[in-house]
């Protein structure tokens, strides 16, 4: 359903967000590995997850102390899921029983902390189950120490055998020669009996643990879910975000940011221009000069819709978003080059596959500079036709293009602000002071990467001409360009 390649996930900044998660427990790590978008049919489950995340984001400072302790216990946990699953059918060995006992001790430590946390957060989830009965089986003497041995208290026969073995060992220590060898032989026989009896006891223990296995496995699930939710909350604390409202088909994203781009800009002392966009069923066209603004807006939109559908808070001020059956991104990436097709050929093959899939349900489709690799006249015609087609599909489509005459074939039109609000006189003055070498950097600084909704017909902005003017293109050439416009 989500058909983003690893490279695309990296490209839009989704991997960056995932890589920032560092769950405390193996159960949380398991959840991170298994992360996937919720299907529209799982809307209620997604809503529950998002509301729980909201409770953590808003309430975690009210229970910071027990939460910290809770996470410290999580950090010491080992993955015993397979051991528990094996225990359903087989007798466990001493190391496995040790691992289960340690898990049960950890559960016993977590339970009071969980109750404290729940009193504050009131999460909507299954409770952490009390597994004290199972712990009592593995810790009959109530030592609550995380070491395990097959205790004599389980079996009178075991007690007798160990006593016998100990007596022989005492005698071996003092004996020598043939007597010692004879004692060692006898000891080996007793040790073999001991091992056999221990095996019988371990089988009996494994069996008596069986009724508690569902509770143990449920606890592993719950701990994984909690661990992941805490990590999602940490991600929101790092980059900001909001509880999204789930809609039927329209998306409204206000003040979105893209962490990977924002962090990279931050390192260079620059800041990310927040992006806002509304998308409905049909095709929305995004236009603008070739200065990067379109791609960023596109990546940021798909990232935040994807985060939302995966149960994260989108990195935005306000979000209303639907759930999609499929999310597809067609961009000029290395994939097509790898397959030996031209970039245009690759796009068409990929587009055909996606069109087939659009029939499978409500989809999100993003096309970044579709058909950019072909000549402008043909390219514009292709993109116009594609836009017209997609506008009638059961999909939310966002197309970024620099071709003219595309916007009127879609339902809505956005444009990169670019140099629209530029005070040309002021920039000229700055340019004169800076000298022509710094002109490119200066224009980049004045470029507004935000987008705005265009009402009524309008072609691509003429930023290219402005750039030519600002950078002092030869007067005669400039005059010719102006005539051609």
């Amino acid at each position, binding site marked *: 359903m989500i058909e983003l390649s690893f490279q695309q996930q990296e490209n839009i900044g989704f991997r960056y967000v995932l890589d920032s998660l560092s769950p405390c427990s193996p159960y949380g790590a398991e959840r991170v590995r298994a992360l996937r978008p919720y299907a529209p049919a799982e809307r209620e489950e997604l809503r529950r997850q998002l509301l729980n995340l909201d409770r953590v984001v808003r309430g975690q400072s009210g229970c910071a102390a027990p939460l910290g302790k809770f996470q410290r216990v999580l950090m010491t946990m080992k993955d015993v899921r397979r051991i528990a699953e094996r225990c359903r059918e087989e007798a466990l060995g001493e190391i496995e029983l*040790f691992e289960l006992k340690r898990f049960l001790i950890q559960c016993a430590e977590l339970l009071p902390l969980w109750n404290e946390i729940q009193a504050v957060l009131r999460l909507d989830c299954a409770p952490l189950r009390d597994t004290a009965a199972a712990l009592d089986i593995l810790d009959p003497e109530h030592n609550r120490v995380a070491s395990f041995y097959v205790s004599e208290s389980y079996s009178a026969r075991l007690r007798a055998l160990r006593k016998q073995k*100990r007596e022989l060992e005492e005698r071996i220590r003092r004996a020598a020669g043939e007597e010692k060898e004879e004692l060692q032989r006898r000891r080996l026989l007793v040790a073999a009996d001991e091992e056999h009896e221990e095996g019988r006891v371990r089988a009996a223990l494994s069996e008596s643990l069986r009724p508690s296995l569902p509770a143990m496995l449920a606890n592993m699930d719950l701990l994984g879910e909690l661990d992941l939710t805490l990590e999602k909350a940490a991600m929101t604390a790092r980059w900001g975000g909001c509880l999204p409202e789930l809609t039927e088909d329209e998306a409204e994203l206000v003040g979105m940011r893209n962490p990977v781009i924002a962090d990279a800009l931050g390192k260079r002392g620059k800041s990310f221009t927040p992006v806002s966009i509304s998308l409905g069923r049909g095709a929305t066209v995004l236009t603008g000069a070739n200065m990067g603004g379109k791609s960023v807006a596109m990546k940021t939109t798909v990232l935040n819709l994807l985060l939302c559908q995966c149960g994260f808070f989108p990195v935005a001020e306000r979000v209303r978003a639907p759930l999609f059956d499929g999310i597809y991104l067609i961009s000029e990436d290395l994939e097509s080059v790898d397959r030996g097709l031209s970039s245009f050929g690759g796009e068409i093959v990929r587009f055909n596959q996606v069109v087939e899939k659009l029939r499978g349900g409500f989809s999100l489709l993003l096309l970044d500079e579709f058909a950019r690799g072909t000549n402008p006249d043909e390219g514009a015609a292709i993109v116009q036709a594609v836009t017209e087609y997609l506008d009638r599909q059961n999909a939310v489509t966002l197309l970024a293009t620099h071709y003219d005459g595309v916007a009127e074939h879609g339902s809505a039109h956005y444009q990169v602000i670019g140099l629209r609000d530029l005070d040309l006189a002021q920039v000229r003055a700055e340019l004169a002071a800076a000298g022509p070498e710094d002109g490119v950097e200066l224009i980049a600084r004045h470029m507004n990467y935000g987008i705005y909704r265009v009402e009524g017909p309008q072609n691509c902005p003429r930023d290219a001409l402005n750039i030519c003017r600002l950078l002092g293109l030869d007067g005669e050439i400039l005059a010719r360009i102006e005539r051609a416009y």
Partner: protein
Amino acid sequence: MAESLSRLLAPYRSASIIGMCKNAGKTTVLNRIIRELAEDGGTLALTSIGRDGEATDLVTGTKKPGIYIPAGSLVATAADLLRLSDFTKEVVDTTPYYTPMGQVVLLRARSDGNVQLAGPSMTAQLAELNAAFFALGADKVLIDGAISRKTLCSRRVTEATVLCTGASYHRDLEVVLEDTRHVVRLLTLPEVGSAALRAAVEKMDNPRGALLAGENGVVPAAGSLDTILRGKAARGAAYLFLGGALTDNALRPVLMSNAPMKGLCLVVRDGSKLLLSADSLEKLTLRGASLRVLDSVNLVALTVNPFSAYGFSFDRRELKSRMAELVPVPVIDVEEEE
């Protein structure tokens, strides 16, 4: 044994027992130490580098004694070997270290018994395991070293080391004596003093790279040993540190040429990085170069076993007395009664 091994080891909290070869009497020595230490009381902890303690030698198929530990001892061994160990086992902890025979686990012996050992084989892991043993209350840690990994037991891992040699090494007594003397020399090379060099090694990006150190500071070096020594940077250098191994093959062109080596000190991480014959070592010394290590081994005793697993034996008094003349550490006959 005329001199008690446990007395020689008394000042140290950890010791490793390593063998020149299979059947050098390592297990006999280990059992002797365990018995002597058990009489003194205190908690013993045991592990091995790689695998050891089989009833039959896996390589040569000869019968071997097992390691027998007293109740209360701590053991780190691989999970698959538990069923081959017959002491009453209490699982105390698991470790993140894995061997071909499963995960390494920590056990406490609740009875006397035989143990099969297979521990981690990396220096850092052994050092961490030592710390875990001490945290669990061990008074002395013994590490059973495996064949051909002699100097993993540098002082970073154990404070003291016992080397075992014997008739099983070679049929010819002269070969046993000469090769053992050579190994002892390599194991006991002095540590390099230069703090500047040590600091530079710590910061190296490539652990197998080389460094030249002298009056002009420490600079990285690249290429074959011969190339490095003929380079400009080598002039006036006091130390040449080699991150990888120093082998006969690398040294041969240098020894055959007139590359300047007088006064130069060659430094390697530890004795395990020296794959040098006695002949090369001799020639190196003749050319005025010396050898140092970053981590030395504290060899406290050499044990000799006059009986070969292959059915012959040496004169025990001759073996012991001649060996004692060749090495600067106490020599102990493993089979001699106390």
